[in-house]
């Protein structure tokens, strides 16, 4: 009998049976995966005789503090080359910084003050921002200011039915970017036309079942991106196939606030409200490692943001309680806490990112500042 000919009661029964089948299939998958998880990264690395990275007290230091925002910093992004950073703040502004000289080159007043994300275009000529207005706004940094001295919006990407939580330009393509949204979808935009090229998930397609909070595009294969959601999953997408995710990664027990591709392009990291970071393998779907600090009397804290060092050996993670752990990704040990060193931020780290050459980490905080961290100790090159 076709569904539309069934009574409501019969449909409800069919729904219950299907839901049970889904649950039992998921359980079978989980069991099968457990068998294939013969080790995690830390177990493997220890068996290979590796030991954790050790930092001296003056090795990773804060070498710049970028002051200028008058509200919490929510997001930051580096240019793919040179030393510039765009940051977005609760004060309703984007600021473009030269991180090396600490100078501000632009201060952009946003049409909607409730900004959540910002990104630099690959050629460094434009920045994008998005937030509670459900729109992603593009600003061309070479445009003349309008009569009020503000940089005009050069393109508005409208179409999301919920807030824009995260945006990233497709590497080496100034004309395309991907957004994630509270409307449960991700969208690939053609900036020249302002139109949606593809919608991932949503009402008529298989995708996230709650707000999407974060995206990260692979640096090795720009057709692949991952998204993290309040539905506790991360999903891997191929931009050519919008109808379904390539894979759904389960494991987290809370919102997945942050996702970031691993430098080698075959893995990605996640950070969640459950207080853990995880490393997933995209080819096998395995969860390779959980990064979880044992807490004493303090409550477990939520992970707000993550980034990998350029080799992937270090995982930087910002937490809601003000910690900023530096994890040795191979040994799964915290080797430094940037939240408790000298010159650390005075409030939670909400965003972080590595410079293109990996020589500096920028952290943005609710204390309104950005800080640049670099290695100032003795380096042994082998």
């Amino acid at each position, binding site marked *: 009998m076709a569904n539309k000919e069934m009574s409501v009661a019969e449909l409800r029964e069919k729904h219950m049976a*299907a839901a049970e*089948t889904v649950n039992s*299939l998921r359980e079978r998958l989980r069991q099968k995966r457990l068998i294939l998880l*013969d080790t995690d990264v830390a177990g493997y690395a220890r068996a290979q005789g590796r030991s954790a990275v050790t930092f001296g007290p003056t090795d990773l230091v804060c070498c710049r*503090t970028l002051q200028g925002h008058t509200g919490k910093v929510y997001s930051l992004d580096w240019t793919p080359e040179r030393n510039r950073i765009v940051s977005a703040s609760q004060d309703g502004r984007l600021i473009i910084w030269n991180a090396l000289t600490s100078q501000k080159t632009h201060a952009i007043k946003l049409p909607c003050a409730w900004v959540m994300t910002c990104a630099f275009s690959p050629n460094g000529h434009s920045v994008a921002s998005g937030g509670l207005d459900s729109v992603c706004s593009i600003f061309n940094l070479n445009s003349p200011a309008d009569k009020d001295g503000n940089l005009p919006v050069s393109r508005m990407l409208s179409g999301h039915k919920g807030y824009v939580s995260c945006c990233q330009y497709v590497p080496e393509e100034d004309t395309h970017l991907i957004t994630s949204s509270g409307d449960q979808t991700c969208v690939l935009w053609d900036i020249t036309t302002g139109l949606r090229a593809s919608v991932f998930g949503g009402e008529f397609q298989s995708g996230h079942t709650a707000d999407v909070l974060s995206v990260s595009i692979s640096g090795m294969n720009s057709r692949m991106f991952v998204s993290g959601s309040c539905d506790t999953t991360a999903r891997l997408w191929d931009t050519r196939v919008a109808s379904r995710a390539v894979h759904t990664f389960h494991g987290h027990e809370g919102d997945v606030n942050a996702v970031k591709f691993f430098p080698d392009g075959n893995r990605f990291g996640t950070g969640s409200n459950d207080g853990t970071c995880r490393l997933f393998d995209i080819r096998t779907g395995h969860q390779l490692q959980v990064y979880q600090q044992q807490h004493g009397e303090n409550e477990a804290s939520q992970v707000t943001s993550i980034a990998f060092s350029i*080799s992937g050996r270090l995982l930087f993670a910002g937490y809601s309680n003000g910690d900023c752990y530096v994890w040795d990704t191979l040994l799964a040990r915290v080797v430094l806490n940037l939240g408790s060193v000298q010159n650390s931020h005075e409030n939670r780290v909400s965003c972080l990112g590595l410079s293109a050459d990996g020589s500096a980490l920028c952290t943005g905080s609710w204390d309104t500042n950005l800080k640049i961290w670099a290695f100032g100790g003795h*380096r042994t090159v082998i």
Partner: protein
Amino acid sequence: MQANSMNRNQSQPATATSNADRRGKHRIAAEVKRLEQEIKYLEEELEQLEKIENASAACKELLSNVETKPDPLLPVTNGPANPSWDRWFEGPQESKEQKNLQERDGADGMSHES
């Protein structure tokens, strides 16, 4: 509206409740369809799992990739090193000596207003 409903279906009264029932039925039917699609994907995944490598193979590749790439933030790293890695400590804003003095005295990192 009343007349149309009566023509369409004599056995059900033309009330707001039956409209709501129809909408509710559509919703459940859509949910069932979504679940059936999910079942199909999960069965495919179970099949694929027969052929994939275990975790240790992925860990081995990971280790190799990580350890061969030069990383400016590590105390011990593969070369080649790039002199520009240390640009953050050069020039008038910040020298290594100044940095060391600041650490000793507990001052903030320097910042410049434009």
